[in-house]
């Protein structure tokens, strides 16, 4: 087990290094230097070259990459000329709010998907199961923003119960308390997640129900409720653990579309604004951190699954 972890960490580090090289070279290709942003559009080529030389942007790509990584390891994520702040400061403002949105929607998705999947498996092929499967299928095929638009129309415009714009507060605590504005973005993300989670949950629960130990438990006279709670629930949840691990990258990143739809000042919206302003230092830091989170997410998913399921031996 320990040997596996060490080997896995080694591979992950190699992958992260590879990813960072690819992303850095790609963005460097697109945006070699911020000289024009600093000096203005009317700067002459000579001035640009001089600035580049003075600030180290004329060095070969590898040297610039190593320098960048050195900065990263010291916590310096670069400087955004478009926003006139360090990238780290920009992230820090918003990371808590993004984490809240992703975390809450993931939690809500799990709370809905697990009972739903179990219900579908226990009442297999009933009307309820078919309705739920069809709804899940439709939601799965829907782009996130369309689902958001429908929810806004139903709950915020036609029938004004909730707010159509997410909370603009800078304090995370106020955001957490503002369910009127936050419920729709959280619900949109959660429903999309439920669509795929419940599919896995349903098939996993159906597999578990076919197992012998369920039959034994029933034969022993265990009440059905306890059979479901004690045996089915624990065993059917294993794929969900993997899925949660794979959702970790979204804590940073994946809410780009939802945040822009609801105008929620999180990391996703920051990426969107940086794109529009061609703010490449932020884009670079963002993509790199996203990639690191993906690698960490995969690793955590594997570890968590092996911890939860003693039948899996990680070798």
């Amino acid at each position: 087990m320990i040997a596996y972890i060490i080997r896995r960490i080694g591979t992950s580090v190699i992958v992260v290094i590879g990813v960072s090289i690819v992303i850095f070279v790609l963005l460097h290709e697109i945006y070699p230097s911020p000289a024009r942003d600093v000096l203005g559009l009317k700067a002459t080529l000579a001035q640009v070259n001089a600035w580049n030389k003075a600030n180290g942007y004329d060095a070969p790509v590898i040297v610039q990459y190593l320098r960048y990584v050195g900065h990263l390891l010291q916590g310096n994520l670069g400087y955004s000329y478009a926003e006139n702040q360090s990238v780290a400061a920009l992230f820090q403002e918003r990371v808590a709010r993004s984490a809240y949105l992703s975390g809450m929607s993931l939690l809500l998705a799990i709370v809905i998907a697990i009972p739903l999947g179990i219900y579908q498996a226990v009442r297999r092929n009933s009307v309820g199961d078919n309705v739920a499967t069809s709804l899940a299928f439709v939601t799965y095929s829907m782009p996130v923003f369309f689902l958001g638009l429908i929810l806004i129309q139903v709950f915020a415009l036609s029938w004004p119960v909730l707010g159509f714009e997410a909370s603009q507060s800078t304090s995370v605590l106020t955001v957490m308390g503002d369910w009127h504005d936050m419920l729709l973005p959280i619900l949109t993300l959660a429903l999309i997640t439920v669509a795929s989670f419940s599919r896995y949950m349903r098939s996993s629960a159906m597999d578990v129900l076919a197992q012998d130990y369920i039959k034994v438990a029933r034969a022993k006279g265990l009440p059905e409720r306890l059979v479901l709670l004690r045996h089915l629930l624990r065993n059917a949840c294993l794929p969900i653990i993997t899925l949660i691990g794979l959702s970790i990258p979204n804590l940073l990143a994946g809410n780009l579309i939802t945040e822009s739809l609801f105008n929620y000042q999180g990391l996703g919206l920051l990426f969107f604004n940086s794109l529009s302003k061609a703010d490449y230092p932020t884009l670079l830091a963002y993509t790199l951190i996203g990639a690191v989170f993906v690698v960490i997410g995969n690793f955590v998913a594997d570890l968590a699954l092996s911890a939860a399921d003693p039948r899996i031996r990680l070798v």
Partner: protein
Amino acid sequence: MALAPLQPVGLPPVIAEGGEVGPVQSGWRLALREFASNKLAVAGFAILVFFILFCFVGPLVYHTNQYTANLTQATLPPGAGHPLGTDDSGFDELGRIMLGGQASLEIGFFAAFIAIVVGAIWGAVSGLLGGAVDAVMMRIVDVFLSIPFLFVVLILAVRYGASVLSLSLVIGGFSWLFPARLVRGEVLTVRVRDFVAAARVAGSTRARLIGRHLIPNAMGTVIVNVTFQVADAILTVAAVGFLGFGLHYPNVDWGDMLSTGVQYQQDGYWWLIYPVGACIVLTVMALNFIGDALRDSLDVRLRRR
């Protein structure tokens, strides 16, 4: 001398248990019959064909001017002359959906095609060569898989402009990773089979092995994956368009139309939003139906061997 029949003459011939013995069904035909018997799959296929015809043949039948803006006709509700109303530049909405659909479908299919071709070749070569080459090729796949897909697509779309070709290349350029893994898995299973050894012994070159033996046998998984790739590509294009980085005026795609529609949601101009959204959902659903059914029918075929 023929063997005497085992049953007395004069009685009706015994038919083997299970009914009539028909001709043996070959693999593809069997899969096709399974597919045709799945009602959802047939419905999905019909919907897909409908949308392809609607988007490409529709404009030949239903003429609208999609290139000259007419602001006096802007944002009209559905009514005379405009079955789905007009958008904020005065274009007929139904005609716009057809035009947008052309771009969305083209990008979807083209990106999936690139993804499958590149992925299949990469996976097949990697699986066949094995050893260190395989390890390196798969590590490269892992590295690219760790790159957040949507971000890089957006960055490249912003930088290199959005056109049908560039979006297809960018989306396809990141979607080939999953088919590569799938094909490699299939190739690893197939290459230990006897007919591959026989072909090798007969002197077949590696290229011929890949093209003639390995890839056709991995086709089942590949075809299932293609349909899901198209569905994902259409959703990605819609997302990129929705964020405003898709095709620009006067070209249009469905995501771009939705992003315009959002601005008018509070004014109640529902015809700018729901018809387009419904088209996206129906097309993706149709593709998912087809993909699921293909996966089921090909699995059954394998099980029956």
